[in-house]
């Protein structure tokens, strides 16, 4: 189970400072637990940039300039962020895997207007 960060009140609530670091990890320091990292997941891209094409391959990385880090999709040809992943169950697990060096790529399954669907696959 992922450890919970934040100030927990007696009433069973927590406020998360948005300048904190996410130290949760599905793996220990030896890189064991990679099996807990998702092999494949489907997602709708948040804030997709114009020009993403069906069939494109994108890199999945962390944008640590935001707090907590965002999982972002990068177009390797322009090296620019073309969207992020949010509103996805178990995103914390994926983020922990990325922080621990597990590589992921995203394949653009479809582009329908502003909706971009991707399949994220472990490398």
């Amino acid at each position, binding site marked *: 189970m992922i450890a919970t960060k934040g100030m927990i009140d007696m009433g069973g*609530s927590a406020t998360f400072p948005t300048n904190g670091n996410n130290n949760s990890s599905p793996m220990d320091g030896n890189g064991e637990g990679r099996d807990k990292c998702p092999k494949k997941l489907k997602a709708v891209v948040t804030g997709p940039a114009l020009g993403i094409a069906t069939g494109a391959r994108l890199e999945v990385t962390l944008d640590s300039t935001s707090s*907590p880090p965002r999982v972002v999709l990068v177009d390797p040809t322009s090296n620019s962020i073309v969207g992020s992943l949010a*509103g996805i169950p178990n995103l*914390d697990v994926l983020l922990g895997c990325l922080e621990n060096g597990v590589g992921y790529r995203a394949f653009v399954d479809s582009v329908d207007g502003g909706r971009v669907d991707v399949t994220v696959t472990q490398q």
Partner: protein
Amino acid sequence: MIIAGGVYVEDCVTPRTTQLLGSAGRATVALSKMRSDLELHTYHPPELWEDVRVNFAPVCTKCQLYSSNSRVHFSYLFPLGRPLQTPYLDPSDERHFVTGEQAIIFGCVEGDFVVRANVVVADLQGSTSKGFRAAGSHAEKLAIVLNGREVMSRTGKPTITEAANELLEIEKAEVVVVKDGPNGSCVFTRTAYPAPVPAYSSKSLYKIGSGDIFSAVFAHFWMEGAAPVAAADLASRHTAAYVESPSLPLTKELPVQTAREPKIVDQIILVGGQNSIKDQWFMELLSEAISHLGKFDIRLVETNTLGHQLREASERNHSVSVLCIAGDKTEAHSMLMDPIISMTDPVIFLDNSYEQAGIEVPKGRVFADLSQAIYELFWMPI
């Protein structure tokens, strides 16, 4: 701006989607490019707080979580269908207090949020509380957003106008916005006549969360100083853009949009096979989904009894919309060639292989998106 409400997993079979959003999560992500002052308040099991934080904290200034026992899932077969909630939660006395300058409060299955704020938009869909002020909340300026069925059930009044006016009084609200699905919405205030706001055209209809988008956009612009009708119109336009292409966050730019003219409908006739449990189940499912869009008679018929049904409706001066369900190309083609079906206007077919197959459609409109086809029943053709 405080956004308080549920964050839920939403699964949909067609189109295939799994998201962690819910009303509050969706509103938070939706407004994150328009505002930099968002505070998300929601319930979740403590072991999943980190997941909520990772998803939403990057787009808000504060992520306040309250303990619940289970992560709630809503599963849809298609976006207009009634979702299956798991686990089902008994009505709860759970209450949490939130205080701020501006707030959007959504109804929540885990419990209630009691708010004290200067300006509040309350979208009470799904809330079991008796009302905003009855639950102990306070706002100097209050707008309530809900649909026609909810406004009438909350007040016991027989018409939307009576119910909205009653709600203005009971809740001491400045504005009540009543959403009416394909017919758009209507803005009620204490100082002006009710103002209808149209629904805008979209090429497809991803309805999941459309109400959340409407409330969030209305709240944003109303709190920025827009008049209620102008805020509702922008909400309707952004909602149309969202259902056509459900991409978040929202941006201020909107595509060119056409207002859809509503059609008076007394009776909906669903034409499709009923020879198997599968067919009957699907027709009943459609009927149930359509029944939530207004008050009208719904008839399920097979092609060979459509003529009888149309004659009966004509004798009663009923305005009829016909939705034909084609199970395959052969069935769809025979429906298109049927002299009685081709007399009805409009006729809406659903087989998405049609346009690809290039079959000539003599009359009516063909839609591959089931939710879109249902909404088209209530609109005049463009």
